[in-house]
Structures are given as structure tokens and as C-alpha cells.
């Protein structure tokens, strides 16, 4: 099912209060940094929802 990121709300690493907290939290490699931005790798997502729960901008939701 994976997750999706609301591009308007997302801090895009640079403006994220924790510089990409979702990337740091996800141990499955389902959210990675690519070209300085956040990228979702749906096949790695385990639907644990840690990123959804902890995103400081509430930019992540179920896909």
C-alpha cells in the first residue's frame, strides 16, 4: 500500500525541521534521499506508519 507525500506540505529535507526525519526513521529503505529530495520506494514499504505518525509537517499519508 505504501505511503505518499504531500509535496506542498513536505519540507523537502532542506526546510524540514529535522532535515528528512522520515528518511532517518524508516529502516526499510522505503523513504530515501535522491537529488536532495525525499523519494518513496513503495516496494520496500512495510506500512508501519512510523513516518506518517512522526512527520513534523504532517505531509505523509497512506497511498
Amino acid at each position, binding site marked *: 500500500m505504501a505511503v505518499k507525500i504531500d509535496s506542498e506540505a513536505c519540507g523537502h529535507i532542506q526546510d524540514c525541521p529535522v532535515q528528512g*526525519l522520515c528518511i*532517518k526513521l524508516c529502516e526499510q529503505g522505503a523513504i530515501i534521499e535522491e537529488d536532495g529530495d525525499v523519494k518513496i520506494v513503495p516496494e520496500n514499504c512495510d506500512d508501519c506508519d512510523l513516518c506518517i505518525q512522526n512527520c513534523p509537517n504532517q505531509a505523509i499519508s497512506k497511498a
Partner: protein
Amino acid sequence: MFTIERKGEEYRKLAYDNLNCVGCGICVETCPTSSLRLGPLVPIARGLIEMDLISVSDSCVFCGLCSIACPFDSLSLTIDGEDVKNIDSYPSWDVQSEIDDEDCIYCGRCKSICPRDSILFERKLPEISSLVRGEISFDEDKCIYCSFCADLCPAEAIELKNIASSSVDKLNNSISVDTSKCVYCGVCKRICPEDAIMEVCSTCMLREEIEVPEISGEAFIIEDSCVNCSWCSEICPVDAITVTKPFEGKLELVESEEKVCKGDSCHACLDVCPCNAVEIVDGKSVTNLDFCNLCGACVTACPQDIRILTRTAMNLININSDSWAEILNSLVSGK
């Protein structure tokens, strides 16, 4: 860490100490003016964000309910310098973690298991020389300084100085034994190829006159950082530790079709548990209720919201005000 104050007829001060805080959010739940906020528990526990778990807003009315409700002494409200926890008319937690000096054998198992590093421990063991008796000496005329004895000595009591360039020159070699370490086991004598070691153990013979050794020490629990998890009392081999927990009840993992525990992918519960009571077993979170203090931090941390905490009793006593009772008693029941 924060301190806020209000000066008036009374001087009230509320202080928060992050060190003891476990992030249970009980203060946030009970604050009548919704002035306290719990920070992002999992990122803080994982060290991804450095910030206090609890923050306060200026709507605080300095009632002190949070400091009373906190089972871990992280918040304290003082009125004219006196902590409300020490004022008779205020409620207090009837919890304790204590080591009985009489029964403690100073083995140190409690210290090594404590998840909060809350046990101060020191012990004094007797000198080896007061436990054994014997004699040992080397015949330096026979010794070839092969160092078999020193290499094999279980007590590492034999010191050999052997200067390689002059190994045939016995003047530059020396062998000595530290009698404060020697246990007169005789290993050196048995291995010596030159029969150069004289060793006699007289411990058994002199059994009657060797005093029974005493182990002394000190062990106590630092109440400030203790979270009453009871690891120490469970592991103590002589039942010298008493722990009373703040709550009684249970914590269950209730999965549904949509929501299941993600175990190793998530392990948020394990990261935030102050009691070291959570394990991921076969991909699922398992909480050992023997060590859980029912604080509820894991319930807040679980992104699946499948942890059901049911507190059936609490050891907060002397609640005199009806309005406080209503709020505080709400801690007992589901979360």
C-alpha cells in the same frame, strides 16, 4: 528542562527535569488547562531530535496537578519554596524501590540489569591471602626461566623478567610470585620441567583457623531515576529488593485486519520503553508485564495504535479534592 514561575501572594514555581522523564504523557493527560505538550517520542528516543519530551505553554495556572500525577518525579511544583509532594494535604505516590541491607549479598546483579542505571553499588571483597594459606618459592639455581609457570598460573601471580639477549645469563633473569594473588593451586609446580618450584597448600589443614570472610558493601536505588520496573527485584538471588509499581493492570497487543504489529520494521515500542520490558519476538512486539510499569509510553509511540493499556489500580494515595480525584482517577481505565 524548564522552570516557570508565578509571583503573587504565593511564589509558585514549576520545574521539569528531562532526565527522569519517560515520555509517558501522564502529565499531559491530566493537565486541566491543556498547557503541557508531549514532543515526538520516537524520534527523541532514537536520538534523531534533541529536545525535551515535555514542553509547557503560558496558559499554565501552576496548580501542580502534573507534578503530583507524574509517577517518576519529573515535574515539581513548589509553593514558597516547598515542594507540594511534601505537603500533607496533597496526594502522593505510595511506590518504592528498596534494597534491604540485611539481606543483600552485594553480588551486583541488580546493578548490571537496571535499565535506568539507578543502582549505586560498591562492594569490598576480602583479600585472597585471607582466604588461603600456603607457601611457595622458586629454586633460582634450577629455574630455566621458560615461563611455563607464569603463562599457566590461573591467578596471574607469577612475574618473570626475562631479557632475551641474555637468556643464558641468569643474572639478568628473575622470577617472583605475588602472594596476595597466589591461591596455592600447584599448577606451576606440576608444569615446571626442572622441578624448581616448591609449593605447599595448607588451606585445608588450617581450615579451622582461617576466618570466614566477610563481604561488605553498599547498594541502594536512586529513587529519582528509578521507574519501578522491578528488574532488580526479579533478578535478586536473595530477595533483598522490594519494588512497588505505580499501577496495576495489563497491556495487550490487539491486532485487527487493517492494523497489525510490524515488529522489526517499526520497534517504536521497544525504543521508548523505559523498563526494557519490550522485545520483538518472531516479528511481533512482546511485552513482559513482570517488568512493565504500565506507564503507557509505548501506547503513544505505536503508529498502529494497537497497544491497549488497562490500568486497574494505582498507588496514588491521599487524594483529597473531588476535582483532582476525578482527573487523577481517569488514569485508571483504558488508554
